[in-house]
């Protein structure tokens, strides 16, 4: 069998998966807090080709890659633009955390002196799912549930500093609040009395903003939430970090529609090129099977 057949088939599969990722980016063009994904392709392991001839030493011809596969989907964690919604429970994070000694470029990457690439830490809202796991999200499209808790549109509880769900109650009377005012550092206030809200332990309530030091360790869970892979570092955002919360805004997705459409066309044509290779290989095999050795009278 000709090797090219399988190599081209692997190429088709990889381009199909790349197309899936780009399609998902395009469909999430208007999803708040969505971060675009880029597919990274990798060649199959190389193999060394040897020439075999009777009575002679084998001679190496060179290396050959036997295909390509989808290696990983890497999120682009760049800040999305903010859209004003004027809804009281919509929040956006603006984050530009600096690390001393590193100079992050526009794509959120910095190269260390030893050549290694470091990604910019990012700030996230911390939410809790039904079984108490902490998840991280940039989608600040929150609502208030029947218990007066601030929740995401999926019902995940939004956590406050200290790790308890945020409950909107008036500190003076203990009555539920229908409105809340949040300042840039995430502290909650009663909009009428300007009094700070309190959490369960009597401390001033504030949104729990988490700083993820290596955002690539975040695994998308769907619903705009990310789970942090085990062992990755997460710390509370500290006052020196350039992070601010904006109430009445949502962070737009950072998908670039023109780039995505170009990617889609590219994936389609690469797919087509691989398909053509299969057809040519098939034609060669056809000749080998049906024409070689045929005696034309």
């Amino acid at each position: 069998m000709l090797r090219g057949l399988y190599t081209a088939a692997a190429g088709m599969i990889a381009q199909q998966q790349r197309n899936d990722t780009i399609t998902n980016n395009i469909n999430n063009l208007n999803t708040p807090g969505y971060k675009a994904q880029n597919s990274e392709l990798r060649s199959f392991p190389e193999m060394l080709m040897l020439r075999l001839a009777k009575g002679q030493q084998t001679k190496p011809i060179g290396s050959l890659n036997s295909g390509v596969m989808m290696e990983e989907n890497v999120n682009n964690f760049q800040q999305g633009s903010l859209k004003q919604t004027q809804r009281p429970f919509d929040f956006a994070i603006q984050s530009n955390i600096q690390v001393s000694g590193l100079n992050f470029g526009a794509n959120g990457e910095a190269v260390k002196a030893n050549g290694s690439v470091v990604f910019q830490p990012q700030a996230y809202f911390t939410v809790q799912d039904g079984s108490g796991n902490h998840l991280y999200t940039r989608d600040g499209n929150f609502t208030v549930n029947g218990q007066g808790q601030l929740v995401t549109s999926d019902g995940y509880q939004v956590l406050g500093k200290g790790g308890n769900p945020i409950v909107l109650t008036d500190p003076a009377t203990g009555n539920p609040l229908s409105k809340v005012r949040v300042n840039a550092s995430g502290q909650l206030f009663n909009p009428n009395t300007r009094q700070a809200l309190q959490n369960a332990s009597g401390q001033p309530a504030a949104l729990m903003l988490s700083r993820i030091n290596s955002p690539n360790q975040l695994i998308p869970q769907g619903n705009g939430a990310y789970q942090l892979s085990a062992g990755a570092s997460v710390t509370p955002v500290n006052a020196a970090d350039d992070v601010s919360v904006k109430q009445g805004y949502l962070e737009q997705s950072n998908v670039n529609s023109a780039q995505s459409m170009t990617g889609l066309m590219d994936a389609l044509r690469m797919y087509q090129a691989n398909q053509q290779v299969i057809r040519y290989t098939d034609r060669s095999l056809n000749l080998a099977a049906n024409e070689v050795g045929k005696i034309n009278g």
Partner: protein
Amino acid sequence: MNASELNSLASMHGLQQKLNIISNNIANVDTVGYKSKDAEFQTVLTSLMSQPKGFQLQGRLTPLGVSFGNGVKLAPQQMDASEGSLKVTDQATDLAIQGDGLFAVNVHSTDAAGNVTDRTAWTRDGSFKLTPDAQGNRYLGTAQGHLVLGTSGNPIQVPQGDTIRVDAKGRVFGVDAQGNSTQLDQLQLGKILKPDALQPIGDNLLEAPAGAAPNSVVSTYDPTQVSQPDITVRQGALEQSNVNLAQQMSELTVVERQYQLSARALANADAMMNMASNLHG
């Protein structure tokens, strides 16, 4: 169907729903007391293609496994509770609420088995009329015929020949031909505590969800008990809908373009399927 096609399909369904919300807002741009609705998109559950340990090579950025998104869905609808502007009509039965309050109305319904139920619903639509009953008694009711409730818990009856006068605190007076006024009742007002929990039930009415504790979503509010009430009633005016037409139109173009892009991605995925099916031949 391949993953790209399913992705676009799910997303186009969500976009269609968003389009429905926008068209409903635009259709209600002149509906008295209508509150604009909106919903945001949300990613659909991600699937993870697992990879064996050998994939952890130097230079790999993410943890093992390749995550694939499955498109978008529409998040639950949210109501914009902000106040609409007031339009002065000088009609005695037109009332508008200023502040985050609601009028209480009685919804009288008969189910298929003939059981009659009366329940309380809430509305911002104060374009009331004097509604006569079978005996010719006149009651204050909504344009759809639901009777407005007083603090007594009963509909507000207006005697024949009287005109009504409503003060800022919601007290309803009947004024007879001689100009003598007598207090008939007081409008039952509710203060919105959890705007997101209110459910629209049609006819511009809102209702607390079934099973919610009384006064937990909308609490009764009596402006006469407060020295400076933050909910007041204005007679002779109507609250206009708070739909911002310019914003709706711009959202419409955004959704339309997004729909186009999703459709194009679907066509692209279809072209791929076509190539795969033409591999042989």
